[in-house]
């Protein structure tokens, strides 16, 4: 939640107005009052900003307020208790403000700079040393070696030193990620105004300064901007640590650094050209300091690069390892797949071989060629025969589903066939079983009704549905297979007068291993695979299967098949696809 800049804007406008009034008024008591008031207002604005914006770090802003207070004290002594001695008490308060401001900037830098603060510090140091060299050669050395009492000269030289400290802090913040915030720009404005005024004060010579002159403008503006910076809501962000912040490589930064590095040689060249004081020891000191900082920064960059390289290499090693793991896993999956195929083959062979004996010998025993069987024994053998047929059916169904699950899908070998003829055959095939159970069986349909389909699979589908109907229909009952043409192909309907389906089960009967609770309760045998297989066969033919309650009790399964298979379905012979 950020507040608006309302209070800050009011303060800024009021400040500008007061500055205007200050310059409009003749020098005197009223003007001095305004000057002093602006200093006090700046301190109060900073304190108000802390209260309003509640920054995470209060310390830097308290330091700004303290610096402002020291400066305000300086004003009071300068205007009201002016003394002829140099340095005056006012100078003491003024100079005390600089370390406070600089400390505030440094604390902000350390909090906002995140993990790049050392890089920021090095770059700020480079810029500061370059500026210091200029300060020394252009301002401080002439003042110190000029005329006047030692005290006057020392104080005059002290202001540029204070500016240096301020600039260092500012430069540090400049290379930190804080520099996009309005509050930062207000702060920079305040520091630059202060610097400009100070430089003019020393450069023009302290003697030429007069109250109400242009130098005052810089100092007053800096008061107003310090206050406004603290009142702006973005001051919160300045002191918020941003660990993830990236150090931007802007052309500005590069230009400033390049200029700073060139500063010593430039100073030497300009002073030599002017035939003025060259300050070789100062140039050397600045060069040395800048070089040390550049090497420090370079070392940091190289270390960071090395770390990056190591991380990249590790990532690559990890990727290679992950690929190897994946390959091993694939190998295991292939192995599992192979084992599954072997298992399917095992069921196919090893289960069917003993079943061959059971079914064959039971049939042999039931044939009364040599020894007549008693009625009781015949009954036993018929149970064995029925059970083994059921077991064989189950093995076949499981095998079918296992192949389906192996992902090979259901292969169909489509051909043009007469659905009416096939339906009639399927009904004839199951008729003995229907009669045995006392059920009526009807076929309804006029041929030829040609569709493109796999004869074996379609026969299996019809057999499945008819056997299903048989299972769920108690005698007396009727089962009917109807074959009819549709606009796109043909439809098959298997209806029975059986126990029917509860409404909720209609959607689930085609699920693998689904068994209706009704069927389970009635002890109707089954695996829940028949209709799953039926749907797989219909799907492979690009058809649709649905189930509905038959009016008057029972169930109707409806299958719609297209006359021609889409090219993608099954493994259709292209010549057969119209």
């Amino acid at each position: 939640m950020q507040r608006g800049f309302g209070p800050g804007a009011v303060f800024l406008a009021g400040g500008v107005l007061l500055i205007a009034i200050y310059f409009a008024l003749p020098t005197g008591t009223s003007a001095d009052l305004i000057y002093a008031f602006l200093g006090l207002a700046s301190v109060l604005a900073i304190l108000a900003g802390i209260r309003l914006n509640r920054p995470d770090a209060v310390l830097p802003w308290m330091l700004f307020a303290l610096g402002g207070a020291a400066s305000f004290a300086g004003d009071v002594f300068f205007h009201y208790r002016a003394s002829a001695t140099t340095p005056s008490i006012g100078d003491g308060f003024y100079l005390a403000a600089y370390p406070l401001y600089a400390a505030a900037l440094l604390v902000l830098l350390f909090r906002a700079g995140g993990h790049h603060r050392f890089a920021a510090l090095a770059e700020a140091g480079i810029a500061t040393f370059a500026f210091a060299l200029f300060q020394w050669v252009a301002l401080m050395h002439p003042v110190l070696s000029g005329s006047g009492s030692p005290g006057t000269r020392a104080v005059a030289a002290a202001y540029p030193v204070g500016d240096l400290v301020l600039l260092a802090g500012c430069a540090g913040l400049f290379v930190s990620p804080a520099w996009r915030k309005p509050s930062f720009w207000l702060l920079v404005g305040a520091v630059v105004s202060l610097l400009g005024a100070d430089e003019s004060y020393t450069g023009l010579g302290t003697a030429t300064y007069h109250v109400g002159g242009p130098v005052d403008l810089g100092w007053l503006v800096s008061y107003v901007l310090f206050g406004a910076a603290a009142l702006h809501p973005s001051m919160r962000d300045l002191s918020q640590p941003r660990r993830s912040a990236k150090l931007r490589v802007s052309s500005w930064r590069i230009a400033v650094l390049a200029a700073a590095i060139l500063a010593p040689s430039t100073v030497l060249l300009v002073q030599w050209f002017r035939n003025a004081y060259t300050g070789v020891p100062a140039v050397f000191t600045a060069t040395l300091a800048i070089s040390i900082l550049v090497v420090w920064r370079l070392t940091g960059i190289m270390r960071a690069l090395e770390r990056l390289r190591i991380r990249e290499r590790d990532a690559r090693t990890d990727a290679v390892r992950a690929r190897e793991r994946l390959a091993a896993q694939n190998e295991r999956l292939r192995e599992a797949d192979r084992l599954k195929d072997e298992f399917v083959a095992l069921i196919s062979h090893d289960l069917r071989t003993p079943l061959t004996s059971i079914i064959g010998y039971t049939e042999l025993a039931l044939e009364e060629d040599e020894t007549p069987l008693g009625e009781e024994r015949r009954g036993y053998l018929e149970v064995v025969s029925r059970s083994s047929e059921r077991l064989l059916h189950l093995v076949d169904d499981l095998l079918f589903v296992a192949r389906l699950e192996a992902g090979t899908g259901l292969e169909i070998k489509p051909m043009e066939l007469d659905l009416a003829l096939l339906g009639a055959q399927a009904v004839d095939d199951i008729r003995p079983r229907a009669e045995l159970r006392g059920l009526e069986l009807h076929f309804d349909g006029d041929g030829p009704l040609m569709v493109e389909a796999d004869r074996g699979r379609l026969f299996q589908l019809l057999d499945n549905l008819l056997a299903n109907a048989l299972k769920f229909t108690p005698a007396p009952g009727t089962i009917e297979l109807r074959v009819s043409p549709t606009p796109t192909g043909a439809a098959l309907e298997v209806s029975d007068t059986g126990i029917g389906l509860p409404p909720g089960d209609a959607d689930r009967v085609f699920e693998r291993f689904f068994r209706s609770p009704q069927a389970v309760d009635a002890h109707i045998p089954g695996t829940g695979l028949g209709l799953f297989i039926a749907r797989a066969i219909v799907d492979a033919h690009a058809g649709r299967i649905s189930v509905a309650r038959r009016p008057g009790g029972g169930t109707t399964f409806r299958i719609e098949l297209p006359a021609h298979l889409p090219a993608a379905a099954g493994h259709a012979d292209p010549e057969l696809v119209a």
Partner: protein
Amino acid sequence: MNDASNDVRVLVADDDEDILLLVSTRLRRDGFEIIEARDGDEALALLREHVPTVAVLDIGMPGLDGLEVLEAIRESAELAGIRVLLLTAKAQEQDVRRGYAAGADAYMKKPFSPAALSQAVRELIAL
């Protein structure tokens, strides 16, 4: 019982003792003379020795498998007339096609009905 079958020889080859007995028992009831073989090599040797009318061959056998025995029959001048019924547990379509391609006259999947097998053998003899 059809006495005319008495002089008809049928070779039955299967490595599974129970199945071998099942097939030969059922075919003996029809009155055929049965020659039993327990692997492909024995089957081929007995075929050369007796030259039966019909051979009922299991496909999966040690040594020569049923299909290889079938190929040997079709390549040999004196055996080429033997009618061959292949019997296998492998329910795959490829085996059916390979069997017919190799020159089989009939094909039956295990498990099978002994009565149906007997019917199939009688149909082969009637050819």
